[in-house]
């Protein structure tokens, strides 16, 4: 039995409505409890800001495309090198670091739970292998269903239960956590060198539209009672004027779940563009934020762009091809058989570039204009908008108008006429930042009942203590102190163990992988469905029995069982 007591913590715990109360946190055997014995080890937090461990609801840290980002950017591996030290492995890489690099850097920032944003089912093993070597965070993965042939055929045939059944079988087979749609239909069209321009274009060869895919999968997701909602990367990413497509997609979503949103719209910054081309490109964050304000069924994340070098990677193959034609840089493209595809290119976002400056502004605007912080979460879609190590700077920008103005003065001078950012006075407070970086993320992922994102008794003892006395720091002025504090916790506690202290990771943790197993009736068990088996044997390059990820890929895991309505 191990016991730990954190004394005098200044706790902000939005899921329990606690806002800056000084209290003690008792931990026994990795869980938060009401009280511990006198024998407990004591950490004196000395009134420092104490939050539940950070949750990143959308990041790309593990899996084939991340690894391919490493392959194709050896120059990125030359940045951010750290030597082996104590229990720590050597790390390297800046925008796509090694798995240990990701894990240590996240841990030092107080993050304890990560969701890998896109896992191609056929290549799930690689993701799980890398999860094993991301030791300081609990992990889970979204599974890509955007171009799944079986699903698109079921949608064409109007069989929603079959859609749900295929999702259930696949999630269980690949040990996935939630459903991800990336440019639904478009990535499949890209296998034929085409794309879809928005939600009403039919997907070649399948005669279904993205709108039908989105709606059917959202409904199927609820039939399966999955913890997380559908995680959508809208069609038409990154093109001027695409905000209408985004609004159209968000407008498809009914409110189907009382506990959480029905749709998680990811990296909305990339989908909030106005104008008819790059010449009159502008921000349309306002209509998007107003739209989301009126719809509790939608949660989005920022997809903030920060200046500097990074690597973009997404299952949205056609979009990456367009980006490649813009930048004339390296480009990788990948087709995942009957399921999805991907593209990767390195990019540099530049302050002197007008389009990049507008993109930078839009992410911040989305966060500042959306009324409820529960509906706009803080992410960069790491590493697409920026590597996650930029989160502290984003927190600084959201909390300080002064910092925003100072940064604004350094970007392209024409930006001011294209974006509303300079006129926005709002400065987020500590509570709102806590929502956007942990409580809101945990709730959106459906993890609060599984002990994430809060510090109530029974919760996993994931705690981040930042070296900040919030009564003494005015974030709107002392934004540097805020950035420094969020870059380096005083303590990061993962499942009751101190894993990082003042920027140093101390132990090699043992993480857990969360995955979902929806229970479906015998009739809807796709593993016994003759049509499904035949399709598999005919088109896949692997046999069906070789397809599921075996148990040995999950050393510690938490299987979430759900009772499906099919």
């Amino acid at each position, binding site marked *: 039995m191990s016991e730990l007591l954190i004394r005098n913590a200044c706790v902000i715990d939005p899921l329990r409505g606690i806002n800056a109360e000084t209290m003690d946190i008792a931990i026994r055997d990795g869980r938060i409890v009401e009280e511990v014995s006198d024998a407990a080890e004591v950490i004196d937090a000395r009134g420092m800001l104490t939050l539940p461990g950070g949750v990143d609801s959308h990041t790309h840290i593990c899996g084939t495309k991340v690894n391919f980002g490493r392959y*194709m*950017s*050896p*120059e*990125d591996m*030359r940045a951010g090198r750290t030597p082996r030290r104590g229990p720590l492995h050597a790390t390297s890489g800046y925008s796509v670091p090694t798995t240990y690099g990701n894990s240590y850097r996240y841990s030092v920032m107080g993050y304890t739970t990560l969701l890998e944003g896109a896992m191609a089912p056929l290549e799930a093993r690689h993701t799980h292998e890398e999860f094993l070597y991301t030791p300081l965070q609990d992990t889970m993965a979204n599974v890509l269903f955007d171009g799944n042939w079986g699903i698109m055929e079921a949608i064409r045939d109007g069989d929603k239960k079959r859609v749900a059944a295929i999702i259930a079988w696949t999630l269980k087979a690949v040990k996935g956590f939630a459903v991800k749609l990336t440019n639904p239909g478009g990535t499949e069209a890209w296998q034929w060198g085409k794309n879809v321009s928005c939600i009403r274009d039919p997907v070649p060869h399948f005669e279904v539209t993205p709108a039908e895919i989105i709606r059917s999968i959202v409904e199927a997701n609820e039939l399966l009672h999955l913890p997380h909602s559908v995680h959508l990367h809208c069609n038409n990413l990154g093109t001027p004027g695409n905000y209408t497509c985004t609004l159209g997609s968000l407008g498809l979503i009914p409110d189907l779940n009382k506990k959480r949103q029905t749709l998680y719209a990811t990296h909305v910054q990339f989908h909030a563009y106005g104008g008819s081309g790059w010449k009159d490109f502008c921000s349309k964050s306002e209509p998007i934020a107003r739209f989301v304000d009126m719809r509790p069924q939608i949660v989005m994340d920022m997809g903030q762009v920060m200046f500097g070098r990074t690597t973009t990677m997404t299952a949205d193959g056609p979009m990456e091809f367009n980006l490649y034609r813009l930048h*004339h840089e*390296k480009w990788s493209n990948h087709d995942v058989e009957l399921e999805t595809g991907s593209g990767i290119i390195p990019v540099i976002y530049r302050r002197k570039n007008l389009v990049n400056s507008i993109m930078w502004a839009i992410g911040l605007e989305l966060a500042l204009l959306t009324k409820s912080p529960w509906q706009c979460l803080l992410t960069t879609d790491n590493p697409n908008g920026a590597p996650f190590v930029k989160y502290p700077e984003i927190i600084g920008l959201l909390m300080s108008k002064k910092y925003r103005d100072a940064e604004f003065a350094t970007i392209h001078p024409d930006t001011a006429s294209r974006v509303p950012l300079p006129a926005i006075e709002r400065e987020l407070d500590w509570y709102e930042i806590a929502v956007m970086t942990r409580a809101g993320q945990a709730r959106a992922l459906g993890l609060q009942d599984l002990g994430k994102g809060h510090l109530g008794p029974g919760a996993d003892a994931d705690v981040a203590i930042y070296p900040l006395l919030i009564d003494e720091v005015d974030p709107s002025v002392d934004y540097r102190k805020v950035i420094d504090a969020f870059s380096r916790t005083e303590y990061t506690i993962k499942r009751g163990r101190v894993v990082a202290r003042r920027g140093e990771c101390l132990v090699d943790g043992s993480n857990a992988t969360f995955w979902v197993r929806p229970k479906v009736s015998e009739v809807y068990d796709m593993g016994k469905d003759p049509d499904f088996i035949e399709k598999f044997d005919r088109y896949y390059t692997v046999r069906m029995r070789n397809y599921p990820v075996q148990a040995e890929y999950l050393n510690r895991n938490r299987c979430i069982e759900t009772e499906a309505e099919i």
Partner: protein
Amino acid sequence: MKVTLAMKPGARSFIPIEAESIVPKNFLAGTDLLVWRGNREFRLDEVFAVSVEGDADRSEDVEVVLSGETFRLKRVGEYMDGGRITILGDIGMHCGNFMSGGTIEVHGNADGWLGREMAGGTILCRGDAADYCASGYRGGRKGMTGGTVEVFGRAGDFLAESIAGGTVIVHGDAGDMPGAEMHGGTLIVHGDCRRPGANMKGGSCYVYGTAQGMLPTFKKIETVQHEGRTLIRFTGDIANRGKGNLFVKDYEYLD
């Protein structure tokens, strides 16, 4: 100050020695330096017979002379910013990496990546230089950005790859793809080479011999006089909207 480092015969080994500490400025504080051989760290005097004549208080006044079987010494002169290194024999890979000042003179041959990503200073190589002389590193966007590399023998493949500034002069032939991904600077090859300037976007590349396997993505412009030679000027690489200048005395396309 003159520091003489003579490789001890006992130090002979097939394992290369990582000697990034051999830089003139480091000797201002004495010769108490370390080098790695494989996974073991050695004091400098375990590998070399070290002798010091005179003293100096700025790196410009330091000369380091290396002798013996130095062809397995890697990274000599890395981040060098002044002074002089004279190598009486051959030198191993990555000599003069990231160098920004001073002079390195190699009397023998140099292995790969001589003067890689060099920013200033001078490298003289009396023998041949192997592949990737004055180039960038794997995937890097910029090779040499300043300074001069002069090779009196031949150069290997990918000479001055991704070069963005500075001058590279090769008196003999060069291998395949000299000046690939060139952005700026000047590359002069006195002998022949193959496929010069591939994907170049800027800078000037002069080939005083024959460009074999000449790339079809260069556009012939005119004939010019250059230092008493008649050269044919091309622009390109138009496949990548580049505006580089390629001057060749003679060229052959592939059949």
